[in-house]
Every structure is written in C-alpha cells, then in structure tokens.
C-alpha cells in the first residue's frame, strides 16, 4: 500500500499520511526513500525555507506557533520541522515542541513533524534536509525549521534555510556572549522575543551594536553582501528613474517592508544592518512585523539572485558532506577495520610509510 509510487502521488496531493510515511523512510534511512526523493526532485524549489534558531528558553516554539498563525492568515500553507535532542544515553527523546503548536492540528494547511537528532550534532537531525524536500514537493509555501537550540553549535541551519531568524531573549545573561562568539553570523533576521520583559531594550541595543561592529570590522555576515547587491539594484533603479520590475513586484522597496536600517557613525560610511525586531510570542505582539521582515528578506534574495546562489552553495556543501559521510560509513565495516589495523601495523613496523598506507586505503575505498 505504501510503495514509492503511491507515496509520491500522495505527496504531490498533499496527503498527510504519504508525507508522514515518507519522512519516516528518510528518518530510518530506508533505501526505499531514494525512489521517492528521486521522483519528487522535479517538484521542489518553490517553498521559502525559514530557520528559527536561538538559545533554549528563548520561546522558539511559541514563536513558531504564532508565525504559523500569521502565515495562515496570509493564506500560506506551512509545514514545520521541529527538532529536539535525543538522549545520548538511551537514544530516546521527548519531542516537546509540538505542544505549543498543537492548536493547529486540525488545520489542513499546517503540517507539523517532530524530529529527534538521533545523535546528529549541529542543531538539526540528519533527516531534516530531506524532510524539507518532501514538504516542498507537497506544495507547502513556507517551511519552518525549528532547531534544537543549544547555542553555538547551531550551524547546520545556515546550510539549509533561505532565511535564518535568530531569536534572542532578555534575561539569559551569558547567552549574549554566546551570540557574540559566532552565532551572530548565521542570522538573516534578528528577533528579540519576550520583549515585554525587563532588559529587552538593552538586548536590542547590544545586538545592534554587535551587528554594527561586525560590519565595521568587515566580519563575515549573512547580510552584508546581500545589502550591497540590493544597493546596486537600487542605484540602477534610481538611474532608470523607475522601480525595477522585480523589486517593486515583491514590495522590496515599500516603506512597510523596511528590511534593514542604516546608521552613519561619525567618520564612517553608512552602516547597513538588519532590523532587530522585538516580539512577544505569548501575546503575538510584533509577530506580524517579524513575518514582514522574513518575507522582505525572501524578496531581497529573489530580487538579487542570491536565493539561487545560496541554494547552490548549500547543495555543494551537502554533496561534499554526504560524500564524506559515505566514506566514513565505509570505514565502519568489519573488513575495513581489519584493513585499517593491518595498514596501521605496517606503518608502525616501518614496512610502509604513512602516505603509502593512506594511498592504499583510498584505492580500496574507491574500488
């Protein structure tokens, strides 16, 4: 009943069971998934992939719940992949994000899937990328990926999402330090949740200062190159005396969708940094503006051609990564372990040198 052909036609029709079963195949790394993924390859690439990341306790699930509500009110169909950690000891997991979104369980336009990391580091589960492809083929307009939320190791999301929303929150103290230490570089859109709490103004100021410092120091950010490209588009606009058709149709330069703010410190050029948006997910305050910002970012990606560029980079990375994975797995077999041990003995006994042994190993893996 669940052969790949029926799964594929089910996915294309948006049938929840087919989608769910296919994700299970992906999670189990079942060989049957390959036929499904191959068949839907032509159907993907239309959805806007949004990552939600931030420290534990920043309210990511509640925010995702409210994003769902807002996106639904804009008529968009939304799928969510919510990732939680597996216990390293038992392999079990409590996938708790769904609780906050469960009110959407009756809505046909929403699909929520909880994924356990199953030992994978980096903030996502191994199955996330392919889960997103299945959602995409099923015709969801927006796909939200909620990462585990452990801080600095949340790097996978930049390889998968078109738009990464970095959620901060007042009152976590040291987390700002964690953000300084590198996570700041992964955000496209910045949000300070629980903005009704004391200290939210300060967090907003701090994030702005960090973003400005990053730009001044020429640090790697996700937004600088995009803004330069946008400025060029705007310049073309101005010289041509009219809106570029792509930009205007996306509302890119509308006043309501201010995607970044500019500041000119004394002695410097104008700094362009993303807006830092206060939200209170509990009440929904600020969520509409956050969605505007997420959508403006998408529009900017489309208008500048960065969307394809980014996806291209991500795919290159994924291919390389998958290959490395395969190689690593080949090293896991019993025969390989014996071969490795033999080669190591040979090097130790000076019968072979290290690179000679490596060459042999490489040859036999390729063969």
């Amino acid at each position, binding site marked *: 009943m669940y052969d790949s052909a029926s799964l594929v036609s089910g996915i294309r029709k948006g049938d*929840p*069971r087919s*989608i*769910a*079963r296919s*994700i*299970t195949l992906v*999670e*189990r*790394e*079942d*060989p049957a998934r390959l036929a499904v993924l191959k068949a839907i390859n032509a159907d993907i690439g239309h959805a806007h992939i949004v990552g939600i990341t931030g420290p534990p306790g920043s309210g990511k699930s509640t925010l995702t719940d409210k994003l769902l509500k807002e996106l639904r009110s804009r008529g968009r169909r939304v799928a969510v992949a919510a990732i939680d950690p*597996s*216990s390293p000891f*038992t*392999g*079990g*997991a*409590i*996938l*708790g994000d*769904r*609780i906050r979104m*469960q009110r959407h*369980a*009756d809505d046909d336009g929403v*699909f*929520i*899937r*909880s994924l*356990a990391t*199953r030992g994978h580091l980096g903030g996502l589960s191994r199955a996330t990328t392919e889960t997103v492809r299945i959602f995409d083929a099923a015709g969801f307009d927006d796909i939200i990926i909620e990462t585990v939320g452990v801080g600095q190791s949340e790097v996978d999301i930049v390889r998968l999402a078109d738009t990464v929303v970095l959620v901060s929150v007042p009152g976590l103290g040291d987390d700002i330090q964690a953000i300084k230490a590198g996570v700041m570089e992964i955000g496209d859109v910045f949000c300070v949740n629980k903005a009704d709490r004391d200290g939210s103004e300060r967090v907003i100021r701090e994030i702005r200062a960090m973003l400005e410092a990053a730009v001044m120091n020429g640090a790697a950010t996700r937004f600088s190159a995009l803004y330069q490209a946008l400025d060029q588009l705007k310049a073309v606009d101005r010289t041509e005396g009219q809106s570029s058709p792509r930009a205007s149709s996306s509302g890119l330069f509308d006043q309501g969708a201010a995607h970044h703010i500019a500041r000119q410190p004394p002695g410097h050029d104008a700094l362009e940094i993303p807006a830092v948006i206060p939200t209170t997910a509990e009440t929904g305050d600020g969520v509409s503006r956050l969605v505007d910002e997420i959508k403006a970012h998408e529009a900017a990606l489309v208008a500048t051609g960065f969307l394809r560029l980014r996806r291209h980079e991500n795919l290159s990375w994924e291919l390389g990564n998958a290959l490395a994975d395969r190689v690593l797995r080949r090293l896991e077999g019993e025969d390989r372990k014996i071969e490795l041990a033999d080669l190591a003995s040979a090097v130790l006994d000076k019968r072979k040198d290290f690179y000679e042994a490596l060459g042999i190993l490489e040859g036999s893996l390729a063969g």
Partner: protein
Amino acid sequence: MERKIRVLVAKPGLDGHDRGAKVIARALRDAGMEVIYTGLRQTPEQVVNAAIQEDVDVIAMSILSGAHNHLFPRVMDLLKEKKIDDVLVVGGGVIPDDDIPGLKAAGIAEVFTPGTPTTTTIEFIRNNLKRKV
C-alpha cells in the same frame, strides 16, 4: 538503518491531571523511544491528526475524568475512518474494570489502570507493535 519506536502520548478531554502522562512520557524516553506529548485538552481529531503527521507507532492516551467511554472509541472511529490500522493504541487512567472489555472491543489494545508499573507498559508496547520493526 535505524528504527525508533515513536509514541504519541495524548491527554484527550478536559481533565488536567497529567502526572501519569508525564511519568509515562519520561519512562518511554528512558526506554529509548521517541515521545511526542500533545499537552492537555485534546479533541480526538487533534490526537489522530498529530498521530498521522508524526507517523507514530503507538498512541498512548490517559484519561482520569471518566470520559474514556466516549473519547477512546471516538479516537478509534477516526482512525478507522482514515483507514489507519497499523497504529497500536493503548489507554490508561482511572478506568473501571467493567469498562475494559468494551474499550478493547473498540480497538484499544490494552488498558493500564492505576498502579501499573511503567515497565509493564513499555514491555507491552515493545511486544505488540503493529508495524514491523
């Protein structure tokens, strides 16, 4: 190829006593299962939709309010309507013995009453999955 048992722990109805549901959720996790907890006040429709999207092997429901004779069979009816026959459904809570045969006839595989050790539930789940491991 990794095979994890996925379980939806659900609280259908209005009853807010979730001590048992939370204990069983933790115990199932500690037994190596992946547990999705729905939270309180779930309608049968919400339970079934979540079970489908999460593609779980097991639905474990807890009711302490006495509404089990209404809510458990309703969940089973919805599963049947959607032609889902490979999910193991178990129930727990303050459920009189007299009600158990009726619930089993409706398709609830087992009913766990107060005092059941979590290990009994875990073992039952492991031995009665409807989808092949």
